[in-house]
């Protein structure tokens, strides 16, 4: 028996017992399977169920590996962008029959896959929702080839835009200048993802697993991930010979890029927001612009509400709830962030600001 104060309620059992699911994406050859094997071979004491597409060339060293077919289905709910991974629903249902024999699930998608149907599966399917929770979308990117793929492969751009964590792999194959350029290109699309530089995917497990990126309780601040100033970055290695034109003098030698089609928009509003204006606005926006909005997130201060309202979404799917209370002395400030394709920035900005109480 637990003798602690009965009023100190334990966290809801259901949320605790849900199996975390990490989605590994990345364009062909970026190093997804390398990262996967790296995770599996670490002495973490965890048992993973790994769901892979059938056409992997590298073997996966794990007891429980399930081959998936990436069957993307439309839901019969009149929403064209509401697609789910039918195979994932089936596999998670099957895996639960051996509940207790694994601690977490890792889903490796094909290089050409759109991460949205995987994420939407967790918003749409009740059974999946009750058994498992989406932990994070981790995208592996090839430092040498990403910039080219962002130009010619919409899938690669989607994977970067969608990511919670980006592992920028093979940095040993590029010069410091090339590295800065590719990072700037990533940031132009998605400034919010945690970016980790890696060689042969040598990232810490804690940087890619148990991120709780889709947990509303964990939406604390929405700030761009800081680009670290890396001392080793300066051109004192003999292999680096920057033959690019010098950039326009931003701090740390960062170039600022603007991606023509994929961008992120962040809007801040001082003071309170009127829920009677905000709710219809966000619903209408995601209903009409949903196909173009890949991800959205926000922390909102509703009028006379002591609690922060937090939300997140994938395309037309929205999930929101009141979170913790605003702290004494904490500025009641609302912020929304959208990452998407050809977003109407002015409309979104004006629309949100018009929700002011």
């Amino acid at each position: 028996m637990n003798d602690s104060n009965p009023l100190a309620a334990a966290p809801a059992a259901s949320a605790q017992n849900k199996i975390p699911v990490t989605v590994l994406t990345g364009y062909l050859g970026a190093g997804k399977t390398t990262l996967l094997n790296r995770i599996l071979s670490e002495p973490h004491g965890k048992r993973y169920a790994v769901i892979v597409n059938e056409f992997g060339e590298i073997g996966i060293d794990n007891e429980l590996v399930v081959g998936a077919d990436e069957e993307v289905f439309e839901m019969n709910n009149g929403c064209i962008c509401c697609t789910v991974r039918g195979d994932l629903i089936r596999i998670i249902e099957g895996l639960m029959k051996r509940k207790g024999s694994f601690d977490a699930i890792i889903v490796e998608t094909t290089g050409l896959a759109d991460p949205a149907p995987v994420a939407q599966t967790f918003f749409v399917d009740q059974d999946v929702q009750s058994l498992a929770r989406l932990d994070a979308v981790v995208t592996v990117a090839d430092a040498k080839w990403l910039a080219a793929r962002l130009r010619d492969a919409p899938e690669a751009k989607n994977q970067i835009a969608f990511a919670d964590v980006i592992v920028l792999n093979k940095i040993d194959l590029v010069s410091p200048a090339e590295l800065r350029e590719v990072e700037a290109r990533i940031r132009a699309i998605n400034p919010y993802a945690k970016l980790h530089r890696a060689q042969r995917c040598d990232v810490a497990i804690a940087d890619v697993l148990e991120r709780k990126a889709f947990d509303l309780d964990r939406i604390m601040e929405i700030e761009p991930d800081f680009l670290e100033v890396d001392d080793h970055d300066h051109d004192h290695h003999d292999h680096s010979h920057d033959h690019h034109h010098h950039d326009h003098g931003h701090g740390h030698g960062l170039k600022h890029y603007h991606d023509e089609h994929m961008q992120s928009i962040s809007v801040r509003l001082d003071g309170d927001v009127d829920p009677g204006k905000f709710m219809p606005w966000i619903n209408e926006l995601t209903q009409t612009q949903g196909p173009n909005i890949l991800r959205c997130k926000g922390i909102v201060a509703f009028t006379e509400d002591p609690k922060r309202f937090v939300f997140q979404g994938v395309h037309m799917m929205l999930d929101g709830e009141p979170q913790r209370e605003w702290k004494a002395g904490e500025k009641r400030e609302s912020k929304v962030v959208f990452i998407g394709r050809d977003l109407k920035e002015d409309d979104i900005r004006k629309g949100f600001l018009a929700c002011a109480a």
Partner: protein
Amino acid sequence: MTEPTSSLTKNVQFFETGAHVTAASFLDDAPAFAMGDGAILLGEPGAANRVAAHPGGAILAAVSDGKMMVTGGDDGRVVATSRDGSAREIAHEKGRWIDALAMRAGAVAWAAGREVRARDSAGAVKAHVAPTTVRGLCFMPKGYRLALSHYNGVSLWFPNVAATPTLLEWKGSHLDVATSPDGRFVVTSMQENSLHGWRVSDSKNMRMSGYPKKSRSLSWSHDGSWLATSGADACIVWPFRDKDGPMGKAPREGGVRASKVSQVAFHPRTLVVAVGYEDGFILLCRLADAAEILVRQPQAGDGAITALAWDAIGARLAFGLDSGGAGLLTLPA
């Protein structure tokens, strides 16, 4: 609602299985429980054998004809286990999952992804590739014919005929499939918390909706007139006697509770349905007047009822839970 006034709880033997119970059935008179640890628990409680049908694997699906239990595992194997505990591999689809199975009169069918194979009683195997992954399989009552549910509909396939299967079309993801005992209707459970039905003679569509959850357990009454279904906070029973089936008619409801129904099993001889719930509760419900008899009260730590099956004469009911327990109800003589 009020609790059932009569109770059979004293007639229930409960025991731990140590693993998720995927399915239950009776092989002759012996209860058999197919489990998530790959084993089949075969025989009377306390004296049961553990048959290692899928060592190291999990049993994802199981069917039985009353003599043999055929199981499909995440080890890609299809295994037939007899009353004496002997297990025989009848197929091995390497690297695949077998999570849809059907069985009738010595014939067995299984699906691995889009590929379906049917093995007749003589052992001849025929194959068919469906448009997408096959989620459900069942034999039609007449002829050597199978119904396969997949995305956007059901295919009716004659394994011994080279012709293209008949497609019963309806947009969406179809999960389980069941055909009425007279073969007039095919019904599927769907991703969108509804059932879909077709009248086979003219492919006429029927939609049975309003479920708060997916309806993953379907059971026909012995006379073929009723279809009991899970997925709501009561057992929903659709009338199929008339030529239009349930079209334009309201279903019967029995066993309304705060928990959702997870399993249903019609008694093999009378219009009584066993109803299992997500919280481990079980009752018997009589169709005529919705009278209820309590079978089992939930216990601490219980999960959902995931298996329910009557023996051939309806004297005993086997049940299993996802939390690793199972039991037997023996009706008073």
